[in-house]
Protein backbone atom coordinates (compact mmCIF):
# COMPACT_ATOMS: atom_id res chain seq x y z
CA UNK A 1 0.00 0.00 0.00
CA UNK A 2 1.28 3.50 -0.78
CA UNK A 3 1.74 5.91 2.09
CA UNK A 4 -1.24 8.21 1.64
CA UNK A 5 0.13 10.80 4.04
CA UNK A 6 2.80 11.69 1.46
CA UNK A 7 1.68 14.55 -0.76
CA UNK A 8 0.78 13.02 -4.13
CA UNK A 9 1.28 16.36 -5.79
CA UNK A 10 5.01 15.71 -6.02
CA UNK A 11 4.74 13.58 -9.14
CA UNK A 12 2.29 16.01 -10.73
CA UNK A 13 4.54 18.99 -10.09
CA UNK A 14 5.48 19.43 -13.75
CA UNK A 15 1.86 19.89 -14.77
CA UNK A 16 1.38 23.13 -12.88
CA UNK A 17 2.86 26.60 -13.08
CA UNK A 18 5.51 27.86 -10.70
CA UNK A 19 2.89 30.07 -9.11
CA UNK A 20 1.11 27.01 -7.76
CA UNK A 21 4.24 25.87 -5.97
CA UNK A 22 4.73 29.22 -4.27
CA UNK A 23 1.13 29.14 -3.09
CA UNK A 24 0.03 32.07 -5.16
CA UNK A 25 -2.53 30.00 -7.03
CA UNK A 26 -4.52 27.11 -5.68
CA UNK A 27 -4.58 23.49 -6.83
CA UNK A 28 -7.94 21.86 -6.19
CA UNK A 29 -9.54 18.54 -6.87
CA UNK A 30 -12.82 18.42 -8.80
CA UNK A 31 -14.65 15.12 -8.98
CA UNK A 32 -14.67 12.18 -9.44
CA UNK A 33 -18.09 12.26 -7.81
CA UNK A 34 -19.00 15.76 -8.92
CA UNK A 35 -22.35 15.73 -10.76
CA UNK A 36 -21.16 18.13 -13.44
CA UNK A 37 -18.35 15.83 -14.54
CA UNK A 38 -20.82 13.47 -16.22
CA UNK A 39 -19.74 10.30 -14.49
CA UNK A 40 -16.48 9.68 -12.73
CA UNK A 41 -14.10 12.20 -14.23
CA UNK A 42 -11.57 13.68 -11.85
CA UNK A 43 -10.04 17.03 -12.68
CA UNK A 44 -7.07 18.57 -10.96
CA UNK A 45 -7.53 22.28 -11.48
CA UNK A 46 -5.15 25.09 -10.76
CA UNK A 47 -7.09 28.22 -9.96
CA UNK A 48 -6.24 31.87 -9.71
CA UNK A 49 -9.28 33.10 -7.84
CA UNK A 50 -12.03 31.74 -10.01
CA UNK A 51 -9.99 31.58 -13.21
CA UNK A 52 -8.85 28.19 -14.43
CA UNK A 53 -5.15 28.10 -15.25
CA UNK A 54 -4.78 24.36 -15.70
CA UNK A 55 -7.37 21.60 -15.79
CA UNK A 56 -5.71 18.19 -15.85
CA UNK A 57 -8.14 15.28 -16.37
CA UNK A 58 -7.44 12.13 -14.38
CA UNK A 59 -9.35 9.24 -15.92
CA UNK A 60 -9.62 5.52 -15.28
CA UNK A 61 -12.14 5.42 -12.43
CA UNK A 62 -14.53 3.45 -14.60
CA UNK A 63 -11.90 1.17 -16.10
CA UNK A 64 -13.36 -2.33 -16.31
CA UNK A 65 -10.85 -4.00 -18.60
CA UNK A 66 -13.39 -4.67 -21.33
CA UNK A 67 -10.76 -4.84 -24.08
CA UNK A 68 -8.79 -7.40 -22.09
CA UNK A 69 -11.89 -9.41 -21.21
CA UNK A 70 -12.98 -9.57 -24.82
CA UNK A 71 -9.77 -11.41 -25.65
CA UNK A 72 -10.85 -14.30 -23.46
CA UNK A 73 -14.23 -14.76 -25.12
CA UNK A 74 -15.33 -15.89 -28.56
CA UNK A 75 -16.27 -13.20 -31.06
CA UNK A 76 -20.01 -13.58 -30.44
CA UNK A 77 -19.75 -13.67 -26.67
CA UNK A 78 -17.47 -10.63 -26.64
CA UNK A 79 -20.19 -8.71 -28.46
CA UNK A 80 -22.16 -8.44 -25.22
CA UNK A 81 -19.32 -6.49 -23.62
CA UNK A 82 -19.35 -3.81 -26.31
CA UNK A 83 -22.76 -2.68 -25.06
CA UNK A 84 -21.15 -1.67 -21.80
CA UNK A 85 -18.54 0.62 -23.33
CA UNK A 86 -20.44 3.72 -24.23
CA UNK A 87 -23.64 3.21 -22.32
CA UNK A 88 -25.53 5.88 -24.28
CA UNK A 89 -24.66 4.37 -27.64
CA UNK A 90 -25.13 0.62 -27.21
CA UNK A 91 -26.43 0.01 -30.72
CA UNK A 92 -23.56 1.97 -32.22
CA UNK A 93 -20.98 -0.04 -30.28
CA UNK A 94 -22.54 -3.31 -31.46
CA UNK A 95 -22.58 -1.97 -34.97
CA UNK A 96 -18.93 -1.00 -35.20
CA UNK A 97 -17.76 -4.28 -33.69
CA UNK A 98 -19.97 -6.30 -36.05
CA UNK A 99 -18.77 -4.24 -39.03
CA UNK A 100 -15.18 -5.12 -38.12
CA UNK A 101 -16.00 -8.82 -37.86
CA UNK A 102 -17.87 -8.72 -41.17
CA UNK A 103 -14.93 -6.99 -42.80
CA UNK A 104 -12.63 -9.66 -41.43
CA UNK A 105 -14.87 -12.55 -42.52
CA UNK A 106 -16.10 -10.86 -45.74
CA UNK A 107 -19.69 -11.52 -44.72
CA UNK A 108 -22.46 -9.97 -46.76
CA UNK A 109 -25.27 -8.39 -44.77
CA UNK A 110 -28.83 -8.61 -46.15
CA UNK A 111 -30.49 -5.38 -47.22
CA UNK A 112 -33.21 -5.51 -44.60
CA UNK A 113 -30.65 -5.87 -41.83
CA UNK A 114 -28.83 -2.78 -43.09
CA UNK A 115 -32.04 -0.76 -43.04
CA UNK A 116 -32.77 -1.93 -39.49
CA UNK A 117 -29.23 -1.10 -38.42
CA UNK A 118 -29.47 2.43 -39.77
CA UNK A 119 -32.87 2.96 -38.20
CA UNK A 120 -31.72 1.74 -34.79
CA UNK A 121 -28.45 3.65 -34.93
CA UNK A 122 -30.27 6.88 -35.68
CA UNK A 123 -32.81 6.31 -32.91
CA UNK A 124 -29.86 5.70 -30.62
CA UNK A 125 -28.28 8.94 -31.77
CA UNK A 126 -31.45 10.82 -30.86
CA UNK A 127 -31.58 9.11 -27.46
CA UNK A 128 -27.95 9.94 -26.77
CA UNK A 129 -28.36 13.55 -27.85
CA UNK A 130 -31.40 13.82 -25.58
CA UNK A 131 -29.31 12.76 -22.58
CA UNK A 132 -26.64 15.24 -23.63
CA UNK A 133 -29.20 18.03 -23.97
CA UNK A 134 -30.72 17.30 -20.58
CA UNK A 135 -27.47 17.04 -18.65
CA UNK A 136 -25.77 19.90 -20.48
CA UNK A 137 -28.67 22.23 -19.79
CA UNK A 138 -28.92 21.25 -16.16
CA UNK A 139 -25.21 22.06 -15.83
CA UNK A 140 -26.09 25.52 -17.12
CA UNK A 141 -29.00 25.78 -14.65
CA UNK A 142 -31.88 25.10 -17.05
CA UNK A 143 -33.46 22.74 -14.56
CA UNK A 144 -36.57 21.54 -16.35
CA UNK A 145 -34.76 20.35 -19.49
CA UNK A 146 -33.48 17.18 -17.87
CA UNK A 147 -36.97 15.96 -17.10
CA UNK A 148 -38.29 16.80 -20.57
CA UNK A 149 -35.39 15.08 -22.29
CA UNK A 150 -35.58 11.92 -20.25
CA UNK A 151 -39.32 11.75 -20.91
CA UNK A 152 -38.62 11.77 -24.66
CA UNK A 153 -35.74 9.34 -24.32
CA UNK A 154 -38.05 6.84 -22.67
CA UNK A 155 -40.06 6.52 -25.89
CA UNK A 156 -36.89 5.36 -27.64
CA UNK A 157 -36.07 3.00 -24.77
CA UNK A 158 -39.55 1.53 -25.22
CA UNK A 159 -38.85 0.98 -28.90
CA UNK A 160 -35.61 -0.80 -28.04
CA UNK A 161 -37.42 -2.92 -25.50
CA UNK A 162 -39.95 -3.79 -28.16
CA UNK A 163 -37.39 -5.04 -30.67
CA UNK A 164 -34.76 -6.56 -28.42
CA UNK A 165 -36.31 -7.14 -25.02
CA UNK A 166 -33.82 -4.78 -23.41
CA UNK A 167 -33.98 -1.08 -22.81
CA UNK A 168 -30.29 -0.31 -22.73
CA UNK A 169 -27.94 -3.27 -23.22
CA UNK A 170 -29.69 -4.46 -26.34
CA UNK A 171 -27.03 -6.51 -28.19
CA UNK A 172 -29.50 -6.21 -31.05
CA UNK A 173 -26.96 -6.05 -33.85
CA UNK A 174 -25.18 -9.35 -34.45
CA UNK A 175 -22.42 -10.38 -36.85
CA UNK A 176 -24.14 -10.84 -40.20
CA UNK A 177 -27.33 -8.92 -39.47
CA UNK A 178 -29.59 -8.26 -36.53
CA UNK A 179 -30.92 -10.51 -33.78
CA UNK A 180 -34.57 -10.63 -34.88
CA UNK A 181 -36.96 -9.00 -37.22
CA UNK A 182 -39.11 -6.24 -35.79
CA UNK A 183 -42.38 -7.26 -34.13
CA UNK A 184 -45.85 -6.37 -35.37
CA UNK A 185 -46.84 -2.80 -34.63
CA UNK A 186 -43.26 -1.58 -34.73
CA UNK A 187 -43.65 0.84 -37.65
CA UNK A 188 -46.61 2.58 -36.02
CA UNK A 189 -44.72 3.12 -32.77
CA UNK A 190 -41.68 4.58 -34.52
CA UNK A 191 -43.88 6.70 -36.79
CA UNK A 192 -45.67 8.09 -33.76
CA UNK A 193 -42.39 8.99 -32.19
CA UNK A 194 -41.01 10.62 -35.33
CA UNK A 195 -44.14 12.73 -35.62
CA UNK A 196 -44.10 13.58 -31.93
CA UNK A 197 -40.52 14.73 -31.46
CA UNK A 198 -40.18 17.75 -33.84
CA UNK A 199 -42.74 19.84 -31.91
CA UNK A 200 -40.91 19.04 -28.68
CA UNK A 201 -37.60 20.04 -30.22
CA UNK A 202 -39.15 23.36 -31.18
CA UNK A 203 -40.13 23.79 -27.55
CA UNK A 204 -36.59 23.16 -26.35
CA UNK A 205 -35.14 25.52 -28.88
CA UNK A 206 -37.60 28.16 -27.71
CA UNK A 207 -36.36 27.59 -24.17
CA UNK A 208 -32.66 27.71 -24.93
CA UNK A 209 -31.53 28.94 -28.35
CA UNK A 210 -32.40 32.61 -27.91
CA UNK A 211 -32.33 32.61 -24.14
CA UNK A 212 -30.00 35.47 -23.10
CA UNK A 213 -28.74 33.64 -20.01
CA UNK A 214 -27.98 30.49 -21.98
CA UNK A 215 -26.22 32.54 -24.67
CA UNK A 216 -24.12 34.37 -22.10
CA UNK A 217 -23.03 31.11 -20.58
CA UNK A 218 -22.14 29.49 -23.90
CA UNK A 219 -21.13 32.03 -26.55
CA UNK A 220 -17.39 32.54 -26.78
CA UNK A 221 -16.79 29.84 -24.16
CA UNK A 222 -14.45 26.93 -24.88
CA UNK A 223 -13.43 28.23 -28.28
CA UNK A 224 -11.36 25.94 -30.46
CA UNK A 225 -10.39 26.89 -34.01
CA UNK A 226 -10.90 24.57 -36.97
CA UNK A 227 -7.17 24.09 -37.31
CA UNK A 228 -6.73 23.13 -33.65
CA UNK A 229 -9.79 20.91 -33.70
CA UNK A 230 -8.24 18.87 -36.52
CA UNK A 231 -4.87 18.85 -34.78
CA UNK A 232 -6.43 17.49 -31.60
CA UNK A 233 -8.51 15.15 -33.71
CA UNK A 234 -11.81 16.19 -32.16
CA UNK A 235 -14.70 14.11 -33.41
CA UNK A 236 -18.35 14.49 -34.26
CA UNK A 237 -20.33 17.60 -33.39
CA UNK A 238 -17.35 19.00 -31.49
CA UNK A 239 -15.38 19.00 -34.73
CA UNK A 240 -18.23 20.22 -36.89
CA UNK A 241 -18.98 23.00 -34.41
CA UNK A 242 -15.60 24.41 -35.43
CA UNK A 243 -16.54 24.33 -39.09
CA UNK A 244 -14.75 21.17 -40.23
CA UNK A 245 -17.03 19.22 -42.52
CA UNK A 246 -16.27 15.62 -41.61
CA UNK A 247 -18.83 12.93 -40.92
CA UNK A 248 -17.99 9.25 -41.27
CA UNK A 249 -21.49 8.56 -42.58
CA UNK A 250 -20.75 10.81 -45.56
CA UNK A 251 -17.02 10.26 -45.88
CA UNK A 252 -16.92 6.45 -45.68
CA UNK A 253 -20.53 5.27 -45.81
CA UNK A 254 -21.32 1.99 -44.06
CA UNK A 255 -24.55 -0.03 -43.78
CA UNK A 256 -25.95 1.78 -46.82
CA UNK A 257 -25.83 5.33 -45.47
CA UNK A 258 -25.09 6.52 -48.98
CA UNK A 259 -28.71 5.77 -49.92
CA UNK A 260 -30.15 8.26 -47.45
CA UNK A 261 -30.57 11.95 -47.98
CA UNK A 262 -29.38 14.06 -45.09
CA UNK A 263 -27.22 17.07 -44.40
CA UNK A 264 -24.28 17.32 -42.07
CA UNK A 265 -24.95 20.31 -39.80
CA UNK A 266 -22.03 22.68 -39.73
CA UNK A 267 -21.39 25.64 -37.44
CA UNK A 268 -18.42 27.96 -37.53
CA UNK A 269 -18.50 29.42 -34.02
CA UNK A 270 -16.19 26.83 -32.48
CA UNK A 271 -17.59 27.51 -29.00
CA UNK A 272 -20.03 25.75 -26.68
CA UNK A 273 -22.96 27.48 -28.35
CA UNK A 274 -21.90 26.31 -31.82
CA UNK A 275 -21.65 22.72 -30.61
CA UNK A 276 -25.10 23.08 -29.09
CA UNK A 277 -26.56 24.39 -32.37
CA UNK A 278 -24.85 21.60 -34.26
CA UNK A 279 -26.39 18.86 -32.13
CA UNK A 280 -29.82 20.47 -32.17
CA UNK A 281 -29.77 20.38 -35.96
CA UNK A 282 -28.50 16.81 -35.89
CA UNK A 283 -31.70 15.76 -34.12
CA UNK A 284 -33.70 16.81 -37.15
CA UNK A 285 -31.30 15.19 -39.61
CA UNK A 286 -31.52 11.93 -37.68
CA UNK A 287 -35.30 12.13 -37.76
CA UNK A 288 -35.06 12.61 -41.52
CA UNK A 289 -32.96 9.45 -41.84
CA UNK A 290 -35.35 7.54 -39.55
CA UNK A 291 -38.28 8.49 -41.73
CA UNK A 292 -36.51 7.33 -44.90
CA UNK A 293 -35.37 4.11 -43.22
CA UNK A 294 -38.93 3.41 -42.11
CA UNK A 295 -40.19 3.83 -45.68
CA UNK A 296 -37.42 1.56 -46.90
CA UNK A 297 -38.28 -1.02 -44.27
CA UNK A 298 -41.82 -1.33 -45.65
CA UNK A 299 -40.56 -2.16 -49.13
CA UNK A 300 -37.43 -4.17 -48.25
CA UNK A 301 -38.36 -7.74 -47.53
CA UNK A 302 -36.11 -10.71 -47.04
CA UNK A 303 -33.89 -12.16 -44.36
CA UNK A 304 -32.72 -10.02 -41.44
CA UNK A 305 -29.52 -11.97 -40.88
CA UNK A 306 -27.07 -13.64 -43.24
CA UNK A 307 -27.71 -17.18 -44.43
CA UNK A 308 -24.06 -18.04 -43.88
CA UNK A 309 -24.39 -20.63 -41.13
CA UNK A 310 -20.73 -20.28 -40.23
CA UNK A 311 -21.42 -16.79 -38.89
CA UNK A 312 -25.06 -16.64 -37.86
CA UNK A 313 -27.08 -19.37 -36.12
CA UNK A 314 -29.90 -21.11 -38.04
CA UNK A 315 -33.51 -20.22 -37.25
CA UNK A 316 -35.12 -22.06 -34.35
CA UNK A 317 -37.59 -23.81 -36.66
CA UNK A 318 -34.83 -25.67 -38.49
CA UNK A 319 -33.32 -27.18 -35.36
CA UNK A 320 -36.00 -29.83 -35.02
CA UNK A 321 -35.74 -31.13 -38.55
CA UNK A 322 -32.22 -30.50 -39.80
CA UNK A 323 -29.19 -32.30 -38.42
CA UNK A 324 -26.88 -29.77 -40.06
CA UNK A 325 -28.69 -26.85 -38.46
CA UNK A 326 -28.24 -28.49 -35.08
CA UNK A 327 -24.53 -28.97 -35.66
CA UNK A 328 -24.09 -25.37 -36.79
CA UNK A 329 -26.00 -24.13 -33.80
CA UNK A 330 -23.90 -26.22 -31.42
CA UNK A 331 -20.61 -25.25 -33.04
CA UNK A 332 -21.44 -21.55 -33.07
CA UNK A 333 -22.37 -21.35 -29.41
CA UNK A 334 -19.56 -23.54 -28.14
CA UNK A 335 -16.54 -22.97 -30.34
CA UNK A 336 -17.62 -19.90 -32.32
CA UNK A 337 -16.42 -18.98 -35.78
CA UNK A 338 -12.83 -18.58 -36.89
CA UNK A 339 -11.92 -15.54 -38.95
CA UNK A 340 -8.70 -15.60 -40.98
CA UNK A 341 -5.53 -14.11 -39.56
CA UNK A 342 -5.33 -10.39 -40.12
CA UNK A 343 -6.02 -6.89 -38.86
CA UNK A 344 -8.86 -4.56 -39.75
CA UNK A 345 -10.09 -1.16 -38.73
CA UNK A 346 -13.77 -0.28 -39.03
CA UNK A 347 -15.23 3.14 -38.32
CA UNK A 348 -18.71 4.51 -37.70
CA UNK A 349 -20.15 7.85 -36.70
CA UNK A 350 -21.37 7.56 -33.13
CA UNK A 351 -23.35 10.41 -31.54
CA UNK A 352 -20.03 11.70 -30.25
CA UNK A 353 -17.94 11.29 -33.38
CA UNK A 354 -15.79 8.71 -35.07
CA UNK A 355 -16.07 5.43 -33.22
CA UNK A 356 -13.63 2.91 -34.58
CA UNK A 357 -12.49 -0.55 -33.71
CA UNK A 358 -9.10 -2.00 -34.48
CA UNK A 359 -9.48 -5.75 -34.51
CA UNK A 360 -6.58 -8.18 -34.65
CA UNK A 361 -7.34 -11.81 -35.41
CA UNK A 362 -4.75 -14.54 -34.96
CA UNK A 363 -6.86 -17.23 -36.64
CA UNK A 364 -8.44 -18.57 -33.44
CA UNK A 365 -12.10 -18.23 -32.40
CA UNK A 366 -11.16 -15.48 -29.96
CA UNK A 367 -10.02 -11.98 -30.91
CA UNK A 368 -6.30 -11.44 -30.30
CA UNK A 369 -6.73 -7.74 -29.68
CA UNK A 370 -9.68 -5.37 -29.77
CA UNK A 371 -8.94 -1.70 -29.49
CA UNK A 372 -11.67 0.89 -29.53
CA UNK A 373 -10.96 4.33 -30.85
CA UNK A 374 -13.45 6.29 -28.81
CA UNK A 375 -14.69 9.74 -29.66
CA UNK A 376 -15.05 10.77 -25.99
CA UNK A 377 -11.40 9.94 -25.38
CA UNK A 378 -10.38 12.15 -28.28
CA UNK A 379 -12.74 14.94 -27.26
CA UNK A 380 -11.65 15.07 -23.64
CA UNK A 381 -7.93 15.32 -24.40
CA UNK A 382 -7.86 19.04 -25.29
CA UNK A 383 -9.88 20.02 -22.19
CA UNK A 384 -6.89 21.74 -20.60
CA UNK A 385 -6.32 23.67 -23.80
CA UNK A 386 -9.96 24.65 -24.21
CA UNK A 387 -10.61 25.72 -20.65
CA UNK A 388 -7.56 27.89 -20.09
CA UNK A 389 -8.38 31.31 -18.59
CA UNK A 390 -12.06 30.47 -18.29
CA UNK A 391 -14.11 30.53 -15.09
CA UNK A 392 -14.85 27.35 -13.17
CA UNK A 393 -18.49 27.63 -14.23
CA UNK A 394 -17.34 27.69 -17.87
CA UNK A 395 -15.29 24.56 -17.30
CA UNK A 396 -18.54 22.78 -16.47
CA UNK A 397 -20.10 24.10 -19.68
CA UNK A 398 -17.14 22.91 -21.75
CA UNK A 399 -17.23 19.38 -20.31
CA UNK A 400 -20.93 19.21 -21.10
CA UNK A 401 -20.49 20.53 -24.61
CA UNK A 402 -17.99 17.92 -25.78
CA UNK A 403 -20.46 15.29 -24.53
CA UNK A 404 -18.19 12.80 -22.84
CA UNK A 405 -19.26 9.40 -21.60
CA UNK A 406 -16.82 7.98 -19.09
CA UNK A 407 -17.68 4.40 -19.94
CA UNK A 408 -16.43 5.22 -23.41
CA UNK A 409 -13.19 6.77 -22.18
CA UNK A 410 -12.15 4.26 -19.53
CA UNK A 411 -13.44 1.05 -21.12
Amino acid sequence: MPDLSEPVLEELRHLFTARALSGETMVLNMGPQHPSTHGVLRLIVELDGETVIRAIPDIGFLHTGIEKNMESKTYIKALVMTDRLDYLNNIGNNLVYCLAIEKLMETKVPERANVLRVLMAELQRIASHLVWLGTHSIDLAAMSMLLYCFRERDYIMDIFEMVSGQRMMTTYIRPGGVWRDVPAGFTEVVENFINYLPAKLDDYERLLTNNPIFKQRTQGVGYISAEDAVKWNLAGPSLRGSGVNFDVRKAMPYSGYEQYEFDVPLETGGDVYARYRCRMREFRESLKICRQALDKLKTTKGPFITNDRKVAPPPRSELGTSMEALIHHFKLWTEGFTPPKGEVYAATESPRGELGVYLVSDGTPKPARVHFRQPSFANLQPLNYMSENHLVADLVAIIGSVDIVLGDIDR
Partner: protein
Amino acid sequence: MLNPEHVKKTVAALKEKFPETVQEVSEFRGETTVNVAKAAIAEVCRFLRDDAALDYNVLTDLAAVDYSPEEPRFGVSYILFSMSKMARLRLKVLVPEEDPEVPTVTNVYINADWYEREAWDMMGIKFAGHPDLRRLLMPADWEGHPHRKDYPLGYEEVQFSFNWREIDAKKPYAKE
Protein backbone atom coordinates in the same frame (compact mmCIF):
# COMPACT_ATOMS: atom_id res chain seq x y z
CA MET B 1 -15.44 7.58 -50.19
CA LEU B 2 -11.97 6.35 -49.36
CA ASN B 3 -9.32 6.82 -51.98
CA PRO B 4 -7.11 3.71 -52.41
CA GLU B 5 -5.11 5.39 -55.18
CA HIS B 6 -3.72 7.90 -52.74
CA VAL B 7 -2.59 5.13 -50.42
CA LYS B 8 -0.69 3.50 -53.28
CA LYS B 9 0.93 6.84 -54.04
CA THR B 10 1.88 7.23 -50.40
CA VAL B 11 3.47 3.80 -50.24
CA ALA B 12 5.52 4.57 -53.36
CA ALA B 13 6.60 7.91 -51.89
CA LEU B 14 7.54 6.25 -48.61
CA LYS B 15 9.61 3.60 -50.35
CA GLU B 16 11.44 6.23 -52.29
CA LYS B 17 12.08 8.52 -49.34
CA PHE B 18 12.89 5.84 -46.74
CA PRO B 19 14.23 2.80 -48.62
CA GLU B 20 15.71 1.24 -45.46
CA THR B 21 13.08 2.00 -42.87
CA VAL B 22 10.06 0.77 -44.80
CA GLN B 23 10.28 -2.96 -44.23
CA GLU B 24 7.13 -4.58 -45.46
CA VAL B 25 3.93 -3.46 -47.09
CA SER B 26 0.88 -5.68 -46.75
CA GLU B 27 -2.68 -5.35 -47.88
CA PHE B 28 -5.63 -7.05 -46.22
CA ARG B 29 -9.33 -6.40 -46.85
CA GLY B 30 -8.52 -3.19 -48.67
CA GLU B 31 -6.40 -1.76 -45.86
CA THR B 32 -2.72 -1.09 -46.28
CA THR B 33 -0.24 -1.65 -43.47
CA VAL B 34 3.32 -0.39 -43.71
CA ASN B 35 5.86 -1.86 -41.34
CA VAL B 36 8.36 0.77 -40.33
CA ALA B 37 11.65 0.43 -38.48
CA LYS B 38 11.16 1.36 -34.84
CA ALA B 39 13.71 4.14 -34.64
CA ALA B 40 12.31 6.04 -37.62
CA ILE B 41 8.61 6.14 -36.79
CA ALA B 42 8.51 9.80 -35.73
CA GLU B 43 10.44 10.79 -38.82
CA VAL B 44 8.09 8.87 -41.12
CA CYS B 45 5.04 10.40 -39.42
CA ARG B 46 6.51 13.88 -39.77
CA PHE B 47 7.12 13.29 -43.48
CA LEU B 48 3.57 12.00 -44.02
CA ARG B 49 2.10 14.97 -42.19
CA ASP B 50 4.22 17.73 -43.69
CA ASP B 51 4.39 16.61 -47.30
CA ALA B 52 1.65 18.68 -48.91
CA ALA B 53 0.98 16.08 -51.61
CA LEU B 54 0.40 13.33 -49.02
CA ASP B 55 -1.13 15.40 -46.20
CA TYR B 56 -1.88 12.85 -43.48
CA ASN B 57 -3.04 15.47 -41.03
CA VAL B 58 -4.78 13.24 -38.47
CA LEU B 59 -3.71 10.45 -36.17
CA THR B 60 -6.98 8.57 -35.75
CA ASP B 61 -5.83 5.87 -33.41
CA LEU B 62 -2.79 4.40 -31.80
CA ALA B 63 -2.91 0.91 -30.32
CA ALA B 64 -0.36 -1.47 -28.86
CA VAL B 65 -0.76 -5.18 -29.55
CA ASP B 66 0.77 -8.16 -27.77
CA TYR B 67 1.54 -10.78 -30.45
CA SER B 68 3.07 -13.35 -28.10
CA PRO B 69 4.23 -16.06 -28.56
CA GLU B 70 5.40 -14.53 -31.85
CA GLU B 71 8.68 -12.69 -32.04
CA PRO B 72 9.09 -9.72 -31.83
CA ARG B 73 6.45 -9.73 -29.19
CA PHE B 74 4.81 -6.30 -29.34
CA GLY B 75 3.50 -4.09 -32.09
CA VAL B 76 2.30 -0.50 -32.12
CA SER B 77 -0.17 0.48 -34.83
CA TYR B 78 -0.63 4.06 -35.95
CA ILE B 79 -3.79 4.66 -37.93
CA LEU B 80 -3.29 7.82 -39.98
CA PHE B 81 -5.92 9.62 -41.98
CA SER B 82 -5.80 12.33 -44.59
CA MET B 83 -8.92 14.51 -44.47
CA SER B 84 -8.19 16.30 -47.72
CA LYS B 85 -7.26 13.17 -49.71
CA MET B 86 -9.61 10.76 -47.91
CA ALA B 87 -7.03 8.08 -47.38
CA ARG B 88 -6.32 5.85 -44.43
CA LEU B 89 -2.94 4.26 -43.82
CA ARG B 90 -1.69 2.07 -41.01
CA LEU B 91 1.88 2.22 -39.87
CA LYS B 92 3.19 -0.52 -37.68
CA VAL B 93 6.33 -0.87 -35.66
CA LEU B 94 7.36 -4.17 -34.12
CA VAL B 95 8.81 -3.93 -30.66
CA PRO B 96 10.91 -6.69 -29.07
CA GLU B 97 10.24 -7.59 -25.46
CA GLU B 98 13.82 -6.92 -24.30
CA ASP B 99 13.78 -3.33 -25.50
CA PRO B 100 10.19 -2.04 -25.42
CA GLU B 101 10.98 1.52 -26.34
CA VAL B 102 9.58 3.50 -29.27
CA PRO B 103 10.22 7.16 -30.13
CA THR B 104 7.22 9.30 -29.28
CA VAL B 105 5.11 10.93 -32.00
CA THR B 106 3.60 13.53 -29.66
CA ASN B 107 5.66 16.25 -31.29
CA VAL B 108 4.17 15.32 -34.66
CA TYR B 109 0.60 14.47 -33.68
CA ILE B 110 -0.32 16.33 -30.51
CA ASN B 111 -3.21 13.96 -29.70
CA ALA B 112 -0.87 10.95 -29.46
CA ASP B 113 -0.30 12.01 -25.84
CA TRP B 114 -3.01 9.96 -24.16
CA TYR B 115 -2.80 7.07 -26.61
CA GLU B 116 0.86 6.61 -25.80
CA ARG B 117 0.20 6.89 -22.09
CA GLU B 118 -2.43 4.20 -22.44
CA ALA B 119 -0.04 1.95 -24.37
CA TRP B 120 2.57 2.42 -21.63
CA ASP B 121 0.05 1.78 -18.89
CA MET B 122 -1.60 -1.26 -20.42
CA MET B 123 1.16 -2.86 -22.47
CA GLY B 124 4.35 -1.52 -20.94
CA ILE B 125 5.77 0.08 -24.06
CA LYS B 126 7.94 3.09 -23.29
CA PHE B 127 7.74 6.11 -25.53
CA ALA B 128 11.08 7.86 -25.53
CA GLY B 129 10.71 11.61 -25.40
CA HIS B 130 7.09 11.65 -24.24
CA PRO B 131 6.60 14.75 -22.07
CA ASP B 132 4.41 13.14 -19.41
CA LEU B 133 4.55 9.36 -19.48
CA ARG B 134 2.42 8.53 -16.45
CA ARG B 135 -0.14 5.77 -16.10
CA LEU B 136 -3.45 6.77 -17.65
CA LEU B 137 -6.14 4.29 -16.63
CA MET B 138 -4.64 2.26 -13.80
CA PRO B 139 -3.80 3.77 -10.40
CA ALA B 140 -0.39 5.41 -10.20
CA ASP B 141 0.98 2.74 -7.85
CA TRP B 142 -0.18 -0.24 -9.92
CA GLU B 143 2.37 -2.94 -10.63
CA GLY B 144 2.59 -4.63 -14.00
CA HIS B 145 0.90 -3.92 -17.32
CA PRO B 146 -2.52 -5.55 -17.37
CA HIS B 147 -3.08 -5.89 -21.09
CA ARG B 148 -0.11 -8.19 -21.68
CA LYS B 149 -1.08 -11.72 -22.56
CA ASP B 150 0.82 -13.19 -19.60
CA TYR B 151 -1.06 -10.99 -17.14
CA PRO B 152 -3.87 -13.06 -15.59
CA LEU B 153 -7.47 -11.95 -16.02
CA GLY B 154 -7.87 -12.07 -12.27
CA TYR B 155 -10.82 -12.80 -10.09
CA GLU B 156 -11.72 -12.74 -6.45
CA GLU B 157 -11.36 -16.03 -4.61
CA VAL B 158 -14.60 -17.05 -2.94
CA GLN B 159 -14.34 -17.21 0.82
CA PHE B 160 -16.13 -19.93 2.74
CA SER B 161 -16.18 -20.34 6.49
CA PHE B 162 -13.56 -23.09 6.39
CA ASN B 163 -10.97 -21.12 4.40
CA TRP B 164 -11.91 -17.55 5.31
CA ARG B 165 -8.70 -16.67 7.12
CA GLU B 166 -6.47 -18.37 4.59
CA ILE B 167 -7.87 -16.38 1.66
CA ASP B 168 -8.25 -13.22 3.70
CA ALA B 169 -4.52 -13.23 4.40
CA LYS B 170 -3.80 -13.13 0.66
CA LYS B 171 -6.20 -10.28 -0.09
CA PRO B 172 -4.52 -7.05 -1.10
CA TYR B 173 -6.53 -4.55 0.94
CA ALA B 174 -5.12 -2.42 3.72
CA LYS B 175 -4.68 -4.22 7.04
CA GLU B 176 -4.02 -2.96 10.53
